[in-house]
């Protein structure tokens, strides 16, 4: 277990910057997630921590030990790969035992540790199978087992759930959380799925183009996004963004607009905050409904209002029809404001 510190960590491929200088501390025992679209540098960062790639500049510390010059095997990290990277020529037992064998542990001890991990992950019956005889979820468990068996200082996970089907992904997500609570190993998790990041992590860092856009708890990132990118990346369904002349007619926007009169603004409001009613109410917007998405617990309504697409939530049984007019309530206190040029957050205060 270790506290991890990055100091000006930087990576380029040729002239192409992949990771802008990164300064960040991840606390001992924390479940920390880097989330961002593909190509944002998050997998590269994991490779730098594991030692699979070398940085151009900067340092990585585990507690007080500088590790960025060490060979991968000397860093005492364990990694779960997106493809699982199980050794195809070895059985499940041999796969899980592999890191211990490399470290020349006694045979009896290896057997005991493998048994312990196999029991914890429900793999005891599969120990003599080869990876190709396993289902996706089972392979995932073996990959976790191979990482867990060592009790490493740091756990690295590179999109470990993205090859699973939706249902299994939710199951494994819960299991990951349970495992982290049981073992309390500092875990760095990488995903492009913001929902996964939110559900698992104590803190998340939203990455884009090699830069951390915001680093905070999931709740802070959701409720108080640092900029337009974060606001759009986090939250499902994605946030409504209203621009152009229409911003003037968004309820509660007037004082903001007066303050930033010579700067074009974008307004954002989360669909979950926008209530949709079949009948008009005070302060609602009249919106032409273009699409309805019932999910059982919610009824999502997509409409056009002054040339802008806007999505809101109605009660599951609400009588709302496509082509008709519905009434969207945009609560002023839930509206985020961004500078149209930079995407930076513009605060009210």
């Amino acid at each position: 277990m270790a506290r991890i510190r990055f100091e000006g960590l930087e990576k380029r491929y040729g002239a192409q910057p992949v990771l802008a200088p990164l300064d960040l501390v991840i606390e001992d025992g924390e479940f920390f997630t880097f989330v961002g679209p593909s190509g944002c540098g998050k997998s590269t960062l994991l490779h730098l921590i594991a030692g699979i790639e070398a940085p151009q500049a900067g340092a990585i510390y585990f507690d007080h030990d500088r590790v960025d010059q060490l060979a991968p095997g000397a860093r005492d990290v364990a990694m779960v790969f997106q493809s699982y990277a199980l050794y195809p020529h070895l059985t499940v037992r041999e796969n899980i035992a592999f890191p211990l064998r490399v470290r020349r542990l006694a045979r009896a001890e290896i057997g005991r540790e493998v048994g312990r991990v196999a029991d914890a992950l429900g793999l005891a019956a599969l120990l003599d199978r080869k990876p190709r005889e396993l289902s996706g979820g089972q392979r995932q468990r073996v990959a976790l087992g191979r990482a867990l068996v060592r009790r490493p200082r740091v756990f690295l996970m590179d999109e470990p759930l993205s090859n699973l089907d939706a249902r299994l992904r939710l199951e494994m997500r819960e299991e990951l959380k349970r495992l982290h609570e049981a073992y309390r190993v500092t875990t760095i998790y990488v995903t492009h799925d913001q929902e996964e990041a939110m559900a698992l992590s104590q803190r998340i860092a939203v990455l884009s183009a090699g830069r951390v856009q915001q680093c905070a708890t999931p709740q802070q990132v959701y409720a108080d996004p640092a900029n337009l990118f974060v606001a759009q990346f986090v939250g499902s369904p994605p946030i409504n963004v209203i621009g152009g002349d229409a911003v003037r007619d968004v309820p509660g926007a007037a004082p903001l607009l007066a303050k930033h009169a010579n700067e074009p603004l974008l307004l954002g409001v989360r669909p979950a905050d926008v209530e949709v009613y079949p009948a008009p109410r005070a302060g609602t917007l009249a919106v032409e409904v273009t699409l309805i998405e019932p999910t059982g617990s919610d009824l999502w309504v997509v409409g056009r209002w002054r040339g802008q697409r806007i999505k809101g939530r109605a009660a599951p049984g609400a009588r709302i029809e496509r082509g008709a007019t519905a009434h969207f309530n945009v609560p002023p206190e839930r509206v985020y404001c961004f500078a149209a040029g930079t995407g930076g957050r513009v605060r009210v205060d």
Partner: protein
Amino acid sequence: MRRALRAAGMALVIGYCLAPFLWQVATSLKPAAELMSLPPLFPTRLTFEHYAAIFAGHPFLRIIANSALVAACTTLLALAVGAPAAFALSMLQVRGRVAILAGVLAISMFPPIATVSPLFLALAALGLHDTVAALIITYTTFSLPLAVWLLMNFFAALPRELYAAARVDGCTAFGAFTRVVLPLAAPGLLAAGLLTFIFAWNEFLFALTFTATEAARTIPVGIALFPGLHEVPYGEIAAAAVTVTLPVVVLALVFQRRIVEGLTAGAVKG
């Protein structure tokens, strides 16, 4: 109609490939009297006298043993040197990689005849004239480029994450090579090894130049130098050729599937 055409085409190709060999088989089984006349195409009476003659009249076993030793050692050496080289070139960051690859390719394009004299002088100076060691060294250098290229393609087709996983799990680069990369590349090793073996088994030019006696003479040279007093001993030559072709055919048949896997590695996902 199409099936008939296809069958005819296949028969043509198979016949083209196998006819010389079948001719040798037929010749090796013919009585001496029938050797120089055409009909009969096939022996009227099967005889094994030529086979008996090659083992009785010549140091043929010694020559076969030489060939086996040379081919086996060449194969092992070429794989022992070629596999780590191919691994480094395909999976590690090697400085001057392009220059090394160009060098490997250039070596494989050297016409052997151009190097015979200098190699002869060098080997003679080393006191290796007429030894199997001379052949093993020469064959290894000449078969390495092919082995390296073949194995490189094979290693490059392995998922890089497997190597990364092995490193993170605590292996050194060489440990990851021996524990993970090599076992997975077994079909590639087999293919490269077999091609090297066949090359060394069949090579004639160097073997003729660097050997003088039965101490190091290999099969192709041995057969070519079969002594005939008044005539060329066609029957014995054919018998010897058939005898030494059989092991190669058997090897190829046994490993056929693995070789095809090895040669098409990466083209089709395993």
